[in-house]
């Protein structure tokens, strides 16, 4: 058996390996680059604008070290949920149950650790097990019974809220022992000392910047070798410097507050892992294929049921992670915990560029979308804006973000 393509004559000169390849090639046409990436970059621009907006309105309070730490702590569980949710949405589904699952997993953990006196890690493992089981339940009904996810997870939302009440006997449990609270309230600091700031936080920041630069450079070299268009080298350097500056500023501020939150490390790890999972694995690519055109994916041999099933199992897992973080942060479990979290997570995914019809979206986009909501909520709280107005603003932002997306797509369609 010979393959037409793989056995075909050697493809283009696979390039000289001198570092020069990365230096010369590429375009400096900023305009084209910006236009080509408007959809992706638009969201980052929006985040910067909103951050700047609130920095001005709050006289810089929103950018103070303490407040930045607060934003991370306060919205981390929404960001975790948004990561799972965007994958579900890319696959063409929705999950309305995550708020209830956050409550249930937190409750199970609280019962084991607070009431029964098990060590902290037993609570976490049990929460994760429950989350995965819930995900498998949803996955079974969606993938194998063929029930629309909207219905399955709407039922799940009621079902698991009810189970939460059951598990907690309708009362709140608190407090967790100190080591459980570390998950959400803990900081890694003092490991390397520092004078008025935490050196370890800065080191981690520096490592992150270095990682970004190295991986960016390697991608660039690979792209050049495979004759793909790249930005010009000065532009590449400018991008790395800019991103590096933002990360270091962020680390600097954290270092001057309470140090590096453990939650932030969890979050960074999840973003990294799920970013790779969606872009670089067969599973991730099949999620996009199913959401983009279910029939074509089926006829291409994608095992649609299996992929759908694991999508929901994964969502259950991440809901459990969010449940642990939330219970740890609120230092207990409440029957009404996690109420409306699903809507925040869904909104984050859509603001981050996911398409209602499926097949489009990124983990990074969803996280940035979640950050936009976080910065807005936080900024408005600092300004003392009334709760009612906050809700109105968030609703309008969601609507405008999706409208912008739809408009963009229609324009792209028209130019066909």
């Amino acid at each position, binding site marked *: 058996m010979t393959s037409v*393509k793989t056995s075909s004559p050697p493809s283009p000169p696979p390039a000289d390996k001198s570092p020069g390849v990365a230096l010369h090639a590429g375009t400096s046409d900023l305009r084209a680059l910006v236009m080509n990436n408007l959809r992706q970059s638009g969201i980052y621009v929006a985040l910067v604008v909103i951050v700047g907006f609130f920095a001005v309105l709050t006289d810089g309070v929103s950018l103070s070290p303490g407040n930045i730490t607060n934003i991370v702590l306060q919205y981390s569980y929404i960001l975790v949920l948004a990561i799972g949710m965007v994958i579900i949405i890319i696959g063409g589904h929705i999950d309305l149950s995550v708020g209830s699952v956050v409550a249930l997993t937190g409750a199970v953990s609280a019962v084991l650790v607070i009431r029964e006196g098990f060590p902290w890690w037993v609570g976490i493992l049990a929460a994760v097990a429950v989350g995965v089981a819930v995900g498998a339940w949803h996955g079974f009904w969606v993938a194998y019974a063929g029930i629309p996810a909207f219905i399955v997870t709407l039922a799940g939302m009621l079902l698991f809220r009810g189970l939460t009440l059951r598990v907690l006997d309708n009362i709140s449990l608190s407090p967790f022992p100190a080591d459980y609270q570390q998950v959400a309230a803990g900081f890694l600091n003092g490991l390397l000392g520092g004078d008025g700031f935490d050196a370890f936080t800065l080191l981690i920041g520096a490592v992150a910047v270095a990682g970004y630069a190295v991986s960016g450079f390697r991608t660039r070299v690979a792209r050049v070798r495979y004759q793909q268009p790249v930005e010009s080298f000065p532009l590449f350097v400018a991008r790395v410097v800019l991103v590096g500056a933002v990360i270091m500023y962020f680390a600097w501020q954290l270092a001057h507050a309470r140090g590096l939150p453990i939650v932030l490390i969890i979050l960074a790890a999840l973003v990294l892992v799920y970013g790779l999972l969606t872009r670089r694995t*067969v599973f991730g690519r099949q999620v996009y294929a199913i959401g983009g055109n279910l*029939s074509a994916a089926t006829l291409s*041999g994608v095992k649609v049921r299996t992929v759908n099933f694991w999508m929901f199992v994964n969502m259950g897992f991440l809901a459990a992670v969010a449940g642990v973080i939330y219970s740890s942060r609120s230092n207990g479990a409440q029957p009404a915990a996690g109420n409306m979290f699903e809507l925040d997570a869904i909104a984050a995914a859509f603001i981050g560029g996911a398409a209602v019809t499926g097949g489009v979206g990124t983990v990074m986009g969803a996280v940035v979308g979640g950050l936009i909501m976080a910065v807005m909520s936080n900024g408005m709280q600092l300004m003392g804006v009334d709760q009612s107005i906050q809700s109105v603003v968030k609703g309008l932002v969601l609507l405008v973000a999706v409208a912008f997306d739809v408009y963009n797509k229609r324009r792209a369609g028209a130019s066909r």
Partner: protein
Amino acid sequence: MDDTILEMRRITKTFPGVTALADVSLAVRRGEIHAICGENGAGKSTLMKVLSGVHPTGSYDGEIVLDGKPMNFRGIRDSESHGVVIIHQELALVPYLSIAENIFLGNERRGPGGLIDWNRANAEAAELLASVGLYENPVTPVIQLGVGKQQLVEIAKALSKKVRLLILDEPTAALNDIDSAHLLDLLRRLRDQGITSILISHKLNEVTAIADATTVIRDGRTVETLSLASGEVTQERIIRGMVGRDLDSFYPDRVSSPGEEVLRIENWSVRHPTQDRLVVDDASLDVRAGEVVGIAGLMGAGRTELAMSLFGRTYGRDIRGRLFVRGREVRARTVAEAIEHGIAYVTEDRKRFGLNLIDDVRHNVSAAALGRLARLGWVNGNEEIKVAEQSRRDMNIKTTSVMAVVGKLSGGNQQKVVLSKWLFTNPDVLILDEPTRGIDVGAKFEIYTIVNRLVAEGKAVILISSELPELLGMCDRIYTLAAGRITGQVPVAEATQENLMDLMTKDKERVG
């Protein structure tokens, strides 16, 4: 005053880049059954859409004269108010509504206060049903009826609109013999009541049995109108009219040297997924390495259904028969298994079934064989780009980059992407379903060249096409399919459009 009810004069209809109808004229006499025959894509349906106002006045050139008065239909409701009613091939009934509700949909029988008067509606529906010979309770949901009875409901619906000119587009394509006979009987009775019918049909035995006059259309032009009275309406004569054109002679040459048998099916039968009838009926065929085997058949003959049932059972239920790949019997119950056995199916509807239009060329090319680019579940993105670039060169896909979104490419280039996708699965047999539908002449030639190259490399190709010249130009052998049965197998040297068309319209009783 003559007795012409309808005259369509010099109708010309163009779509962007295509002339669907050129100067078509049609005259229908009052109280006759007038058949329209032509190959797939000849323009029959377009002509009827012009007549029924689906293509409104102004979107075409020419004149429609009904009862001596020129008409300018702005839409379906407009034409229906003049008694012109079309029944489409795909029935337009709402499955969960009752017979009566369907009959009066959009035309509800109202009582005082604008509320629907159900007693009146059901009573009137019962009368209409009786007049078409359907004895069912009008409150029965339509989904509980078979296709044949649903067809009768459609006709009852037309009668409720005071139809004078009834247009039926392939009404018997989905019916079994008994239901077809009933329907034709009903048309005769309606004729006796003074209702004129226009019948579009591929089943020439039906046409010759029932039509008072037959108009043949080819390539968007009227060829001739034959009248029963003059004894001109014979199947041979109609076929000659339908295919009588020169071979578009742009098929690249190929030296044929068939090798070993690659794929064979025996006694293959497939049942319709929801209806109780065989879509493929006891079919057997084989294809060899280095050979292009054609499947010719009219719409509804079961070509695509046959192909998809082979390809991981993606169509139909209760599939019976044996499938052999390289002489060994195999089972291909899923697409993944079919791909593993070296079978690839290039769909006739690339936008719906072939491509993820919102994704880029690169990801579409690798979609069916991502495993080849992955280790432990991780995709090698750089190799993927290399593969896509190789396809771009091999197939001459015209795109700025393999990162370009597939939805923005032209039809021909999209088709090349689909072909690339399947070639990357490294198949032994390629089933190409209407591979040149909707693409321009230049791209067609390129596709033909690619097919010839693949065959020269030892692949086997099954080519399904509605265009007989394409089959004659490309194939080594051609199977003909009619109503799910293989009615013949013709080496290309002996094949002509006439004898193929004859086999394609062969009915069960004539097969014996």
